[in-house]
């Protein structure tokens, strides 16, 4: 499997750092289970740090969309941090830059969630 994740809490926000690839198969499954795990623990504010993601395919993009939808349905928010140029280009091509809140600065991203969510 070519994906790893780390989790840390910054104020009320769970920051998930992903590295490697988000592609069809085990990598997408890993992301899905990571998000599912956070939701089952009641996490509502998730910031995905994609700074170390080298490659996302269309299935991976779909997984990001599904993650966004799952978190939103639970009344939470999922935002993105530190996109590489390649990943940003992908979200531009797919028009998903209009869907995701994207940040380059972790502190600003954390602040954007406000203080009302866990």
């Amino acid at each position, binding site marked *: 499997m070519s994906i790893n994740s780390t989790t840390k809490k910054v104020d009320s926000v769970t920051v998930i750092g992903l590295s490697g690839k988000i592609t*069809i198969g085990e990598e997408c499954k890993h992301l899905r289970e990571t998000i599912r795990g956070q939701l089952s623990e009641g996490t509502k504010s998730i910031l995905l740090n994609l700074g170390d993601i080298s*490659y996302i395919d*269309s299935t991976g993009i779909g997984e990001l969309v*599904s993650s*966004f939808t799952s978190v939103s349905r639970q009344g939470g928010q999922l935002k993105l941090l530190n996109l590489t140029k390649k990943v940003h280009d992908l979200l531009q*091509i797919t*028009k*998903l830059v209009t869907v995701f809140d994207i940040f380059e600065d972790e502190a600003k991203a954390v602040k954007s969630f406000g203080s009302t969510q866990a």
Partner: protein
Amino acid sequence: MAKETIRVEITLESNLKHVELIEVIAQTVAKQCGFGEDGLHEILMAVHECAINAICHGNKEDLQKQVGLSLSVHPDRLEIRVRDQGKSFNPNDVPDPLDKENLMKPAGRGILLIQAFMDEFRVGRCENWGNEVIMTKRLPSPSQPEKGGVGREHQ
């Protein structure tokens, strides 16, 4: 008509574990053509999406079926063909993933990405196979260094 200089063909069991090999072969040939980092990445993405489509959608992950890859280097372009043994497929039947009602769907973006990364994309039927996707990308010219941008049609 310019003479073809290199042609590489491989046929593999229709198995997702072979996608990486298909990518490596395509990238190796593309590197020989002089593509830079951005071009190689675009070719990798297009071939990856195409191979996934062939194996998952064309061949329905049937390990008894095969997937074919063919790369032809012409003086002005790299032509990549990916074949499956699936039923006829019309890319125009795929809902536009950029339409508002499809934007949040989890699937259906593969062809959009292929079209964004390659100069030409078309689908036909191939004798003794099934669907054949033909993609081409112009070779980088020494006098016109490769541009780093992607998504020409969507910018």
